[in-house]
């Protein structure tokens, strides 16, 4: 019994870490830069699919799967390829959508991007095996270590930890930098930021690409751990749920992103996953869970939009210097 519990908790840790990649990524594009990336989950799928077809060998008749590439390369090469593919797609989508337009238009285009990507993934079976999706993706270090399948999770946790730690450090650097400050200014008021010299389109595009890379990494970790990915895993609801997690936890705050991943992905989703399904109505529990999440995020936005951990007010420590300085060494009175 204790062994099963360890195993279950270990899986939770992995799901949590992967979700942190998602919320941290959305925290850059939406939390800090204010980009309504309603296509977000598409980049997760891109990372997953490209990592999958990199790690898998070429599609053979025997495997009954159809997909492109099949490079049979090990981790972390597939991680790099997956993350890059996601970033490239993020760049293309951003170039199309990030312009001096209203948020509505941006959101509409991004929803359309998801819709098309999802439709193509389902219909173009030669790409990533269509509706059935990829299966049998080799897990990182698995062939080398050859552990009991149940124990593999304990191998994966440190891998995921390292990856998420890197993402966390990058997020920290962004949050505490002039770049991050510029993103927030653009979020607060795009027109004023532009009038004060910020290249707002470029900044928002950069934020979106960073977010998409994070999502791609999350996708890579997902497919590497679960060995499979199909379109069901990235329906439009998944984007709503990542938004919910970030908003509940606290957008604009890297710890808020982590807290949101914990509360929504682990507490709510895993928590309700423990409820036994009702025979004949298997979808009911998950339907009610999603309704609950929707209500929670609306309530948070209404009553406490900053979330559980609001964006921190940064303090800067430096002595006052007299203004203005006309030339070095020239003294100024009062």
């Amino acid at each position, binding site marked *: 019994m204790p062994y099963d519990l360890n195993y279950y908790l270990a899986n939770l840790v992995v799901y949590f870490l992967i979700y942190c990649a998602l919320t941290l990524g959305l925290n850059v594009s939406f939390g800090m830069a204010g980009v309504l990336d309603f296509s977000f989950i598409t980049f997760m799928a891109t990372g997953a699919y490209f990592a999958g077809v990199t790690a898998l060998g070429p599609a053979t008749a025997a495997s009954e799967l159809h997909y492109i590439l099949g490079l049979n390369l090990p981790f972390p090469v597939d991680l790099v390829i997956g993350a890059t593919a996601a970033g490239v797609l993020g760049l293309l989508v951003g170039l199309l959508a990030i312009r001096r337009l209203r948020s*509505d238009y941006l959101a509409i285009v991004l929803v359309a991007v998801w819709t*098309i990507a999802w439709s193509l993934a389902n219909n173009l079976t030669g790409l990533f095996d269509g509706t059935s999706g990829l299966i049998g993706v080799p897990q990182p270090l698995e062939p080398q270590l050859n552990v009991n399948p149940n124990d593999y999770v304990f191998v994966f946790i440190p891998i995921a930890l390292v990856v998420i730690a890197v993402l966390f450090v990058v997020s920290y650097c962004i949050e505490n930098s002039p770049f991050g400050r510029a993103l927030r200014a653009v979020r607060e008021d795009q027109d004023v930021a532009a009038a004060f010299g910020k290249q707002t389109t470029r900044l928002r595009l950069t934020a979106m690409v960073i977010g998409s890379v994070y999502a791609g990494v999350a996708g890579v970790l997902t497919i590497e751990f679960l060995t499979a990915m199909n379109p069901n895993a990235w329906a439009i609801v998944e984007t709503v*749920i990542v*938004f919910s997690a970030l908003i509940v936890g606290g957008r604009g705050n890297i710890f808020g992103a982590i807290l949101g991943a914990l509360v929504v992905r682990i507490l709510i989703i895993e928590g309700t996953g423990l409820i036994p399904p009702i025979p004949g109505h298997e979808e009911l529990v998950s339907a009610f869970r999603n309704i609950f*999440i929707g209500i929670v995020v*609306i309530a948070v*936005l209404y009553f406490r939009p900053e979330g559980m951990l609001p964006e921190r007010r940064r303090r800067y420590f430096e002595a006052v210097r007299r203004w203005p300085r006309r030339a070095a060494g020239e003294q100024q009175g009062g």
Partner: protein
Amino acid sequence: MTIALHSVGFGLVTASIIALAAVGLTLQFGVTNYINFAYGDFMTLGAYLTWTLDSAFNLPIWLSLALAAVLTSVAALVVSQVLLEPFARRHKQLLFILIVTFALSLILSNAILAIWGGDYHEYNVGLETPLSIGPLLLTPQDLGIILLAALSMLGVHLLLTRTNVGKAMRAISDDKNLASVTGIATEQIVALVWIISGLLAGLSGGVLALDVVSFDPNLGVRFLFVIFAAVILGGIGRPYGAMLGALVIGLAVEVSVVVIPAAYKLDVAFVILVVVLLLRPQGLLAVAGKA
């Protein structure tokens, strides 16, 4: 050649469905100034309500469609009064209300899933034989859809041009602050536009389900961006533009089947959306200051 002409016929049907939805969406945007991302789910609601009335209560299909549309408009009114408008009043940022409608989409689609289940549904209507109307090949159902859309467009036109309430809608669409200053009862107009929007959403969802025959809770969501494409092509907030956009997109989508596999025909709408956004984001009949 005949295939192309038949496609034009289908194009008119598709255009009719899109037009019903697009006009509802664009009218609501014109008055409230935010896009309702749950609109597709209101369409889905209309389809499922139609199914219930048709299959469970055995009402004739066109009556079911009409009643379902009315019920959907009630749902839209309730949601707007209880949730969306109070939210828009309290939090002025556009970002928030868009996320709220996005979350509303999550709630609605799952409520539909919870009530009706995830299996595919179909209306209780038989297969019909197509009639030859000139060069076009359409079933009586198709004709019914086109007629319904045409009547609805006429109704909207009359509303906007002949009634005080419709003229008020146009005034608010042009400048919300100005309208409230000159004494037009903005809140009542907003409520009315949600009723109309819900009505058209329910109607379009119902006929969409009729057209695709077999549907699941994702019916509206998958079609939503096609509606968006029509709305943006016509100029956001412009009902006549939406009608024009619907016609263009409906025809383009169906006629494209002549050259590309049918599974990708909706993607044509995406291409049009992209082209419009790159070349003329304000749409064909644009209003200054909206985009």
